[in-house]
């Protein structure tokens, strides 16, 4: 671990922590301001206050507190099962309206909503006990990690910019010195990831969920989520070490170029020029660590299957990219002259 | 040791020679008593802000010339009989100064008689006055 680089990382993480604290605080404020609308109890009370509703409250043998609201006039029937720490299960049956879909299955964070229609009645079930897939935490954490990776990238360019006389007169070989720098930065990126995950978890707690789902692709998401920002960092490291004089420009152009390349790679074109541009974009995108990450929104069918597909190959490429880019940076670092 | 040693590094005379001459002069004038301890090489080097090897070389010369003696582990001292040679040393110093003066005189074109006259004037000025003060 390189001390000076670690100081840089520490300053970076300090900024990250402050930003995350601000976000968590905002989430907390949001939670408080929405509390009127979020509590199933209050919602049930609201509906229960309508004329013609009978309210029954019983306790099931397993301790679940069940509230049944029934309004035969409106043909509305609500069953609220309060399982305490295990969450709440709500079943709502009401006449179908144009708002109801035929079948819908949505999971947002820890809230699972299912709609189905039979005849002229629609049934909606809401579960708030679902564990949050770790995958979503990692997705947000990776956005943070990519930002941190870009902030920390160019450590060798910074050394080349007037500090080689210190760096190269230490009793360690150049390569070992460089590995210490890389270790500090990658550790910093991973710590930033962890901080972001913790922040997300705290926000989730505000909204009533405390369980996290690590099963299946979620644990693989952690692996991918750690390696991908490291590979992006390594790419920027290599680029800035080779073009050390203009490293600010390299860092500045990195994001736009990655986006443009990514777009070119997926846009379909029919003209010869368009096809050529597409091909070039496709080839360049193979060099971009972000290409190998698959993420789908919660609405997509088979989202989980899509995200889990081909994992070993993509993960392997990600690691390979990290090693190759880091190696390129090291090669240049080893040969540079003060 | 009293700080009577000064060296001028900008002078063309090597520093070690300056140190040698000044110590000889101090001994001859009695500023350095016989048996008195000299500073260590390191101390004198720091005091004069000059290279220690220069001081070491000066000490070696002084030892060779019989002005000081060095006892390993104890330091350098003015020889007990160091001032025995002091009239000789004094004469050497005076003789060197006279050489310089006469060379200068010749280089500006004075002849021997003129120089002698100047010498008598200076002699009167310096030595008669000193006799009055004594």
């Amino acid at each position, binding site marked *: 671990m390189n001390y000076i680089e670690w100081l840089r990382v520490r300053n970076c993480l300090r900024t990250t922590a402050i930003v995350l604290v601000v976000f968590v605080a905002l989430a907390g404020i949001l939670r408080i301001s929405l509390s009127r609308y979020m509590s199933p109890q209050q919602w049930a009370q609201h509906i229960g206050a309508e004329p013609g509703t009978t309210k029954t409250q019983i306790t099931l043998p397993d301790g679940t507190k069940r509230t049944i609201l029934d309004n035969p006039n409106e043909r509305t029937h609500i069953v609220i099962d309060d399982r305490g720490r295990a969450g709440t299960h709500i079943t709502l049956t009401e006449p179908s309206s144009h708002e109801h879909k035929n079948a819908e299955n949505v999971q947002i964070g820890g809230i699972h909503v299912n709609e189905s229609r039979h005849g002229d009645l629609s049934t909606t079930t809401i579960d708030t006990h679902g564990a949050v897939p770790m995958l979503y935490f990692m997705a947000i954490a990776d956005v943070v990690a990519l930002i941190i990776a870009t902030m920390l990238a160019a450590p060798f360019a910074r050394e080349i910019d007037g500090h080689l006389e210190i760096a190269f007169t230490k009793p360690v070989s150049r390569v070992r010195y460089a590995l210490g720098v890389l270790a500090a930065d990658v550790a910093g990126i991973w710590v930033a990831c962890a901080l972001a995950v913790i922040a997300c978890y705290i926000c989730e707690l505000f909204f009533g969920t405390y369980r996290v789902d690590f099963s299946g692709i979620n644990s693989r998401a952690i692996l991918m989520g750690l390696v991908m920002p490291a590979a992006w960092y390594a790419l920027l490291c290599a680029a800035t070490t080779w073009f050390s004089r203009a490293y600010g420009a390299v860092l500045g152009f990195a994001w736009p170029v990655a986006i443009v390349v990514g777009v070119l790679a997926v846009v379909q074109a029919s003209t010869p020029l368009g096809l050529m541009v597409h091909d070039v974009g496709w080839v360049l995108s193979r060099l971009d660590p972000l290409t190998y990450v698959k993420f789908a929104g919660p609405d997509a069918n088979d989202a989980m299957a899509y995200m889990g597909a081909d994992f070993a190959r993509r993960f392997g490429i990600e690691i390979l990219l990290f090693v190759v880019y880091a190696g390129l940076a090291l090669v240049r670092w080893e040969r540079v*002259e003060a | 040791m009293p700080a009577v040693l000064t060296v001028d590094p900008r002078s063309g005379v090597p520093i070690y020679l300056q140190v040698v001459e000044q110590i000889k002069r101090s001994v001859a004038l009695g500023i350095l008593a016989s048996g008195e301890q000299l500073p260590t090489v390191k101390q004198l080097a720091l005091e004069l802000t000059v290279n220690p090897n220069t001081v070491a070389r000066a000490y070696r010369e002084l030892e060779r010339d019989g002005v000081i003696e060095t006892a390993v582990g104890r330091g350098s001292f003015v020889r007990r009989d160091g001032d025995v040679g002091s009239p000789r040393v004094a004469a050497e110093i005076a003789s060197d100064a006279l050489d310089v003066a006469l060379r200068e005189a010749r280089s500006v074109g004075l002849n021997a008689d003129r120089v002698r006259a100047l010498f008598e004037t200076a002699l009167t000025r310096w030595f008669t006055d000193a006799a009055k003060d004594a």
Partner: protein
Amino acid sequence: MSTITISHLRKDYGGVAAVDDLTLEVPDSTVFGLLGPNGAGKTTTFKCMLGLARATAGDVRYDGQALRPESFERIAYVPERSTLYDNFTVNEHIEMTRRAFRAFEPARARTLLEQFGVDSRKRVRALSKGMKTAVMVALAFSRQAEMLVLDEPTGGLDPVNQRHVLSLMISEAAKGHSIIFSSHQIGQVERAAERIAILQHGRLILEGLVDDLKADRKIVEGIAPVGGFSLDGITSDSRVARCDRTERVVRLLVIDGAPEFAQRLAQAGATGIRVLDMNLEDIFLYAVSPADATTAVVAQELAP
């Protein structure tokens, strides 16, 4: 770390030799001054010595061995310009040095910094140029290094601090450590250095013990008679390094045998002959300033 041996060192930058066929040796426990005009190749020599730049030809050996990373436990370097990290404090630099080198003494560094008047809580970017030099010096001299490579170690320092650096160098020399340093302050070099080398245009033009150079090199000056006179046999002597002439005054820079030349000038009819000592500044200036103009004058004078 005792001797440094530089053999036929050459370093090219874009086809131009910044250092050309440099051979010199820094003996054990020696303070070695490297002099030269700006751009003479002093900094380049240091960089090649320390592995900061790759030599085009030749090599540098420490005690007969090539430079290795471990060698830097015993070598301390003060570069010409500040290479400290602007955004970090002096204290953080002390910590960084402590972690990098085994023999570093933080307490001594702090004492030295206090003596230089540096507030170690400050960030480096808040320090003046002289203070930055002082920090680099304090860190380098707190490492018990056997070999110190100093490139203009008094740059930007006020006279009191300059004298302080000089004293530090002399202390290290008294401990038997070696120092190779470059400086434009010839007075400092005269005090601290035992040996010097003068570089110009990347080449070594003079090398030797300071005391010997001063003892041997003299200027023999004479006033030529009105009719002019012949310097044949005098100027062709290899011990005459330079001959400067105006209409009436002849000055020979001799590297040995001054009394003999004084006599020969007298025999040639010159008067007002003087033998002048040369201090290091004189030696340096005469070594680096071109002699071509004056030889032409001499040739003209000698023609009937």
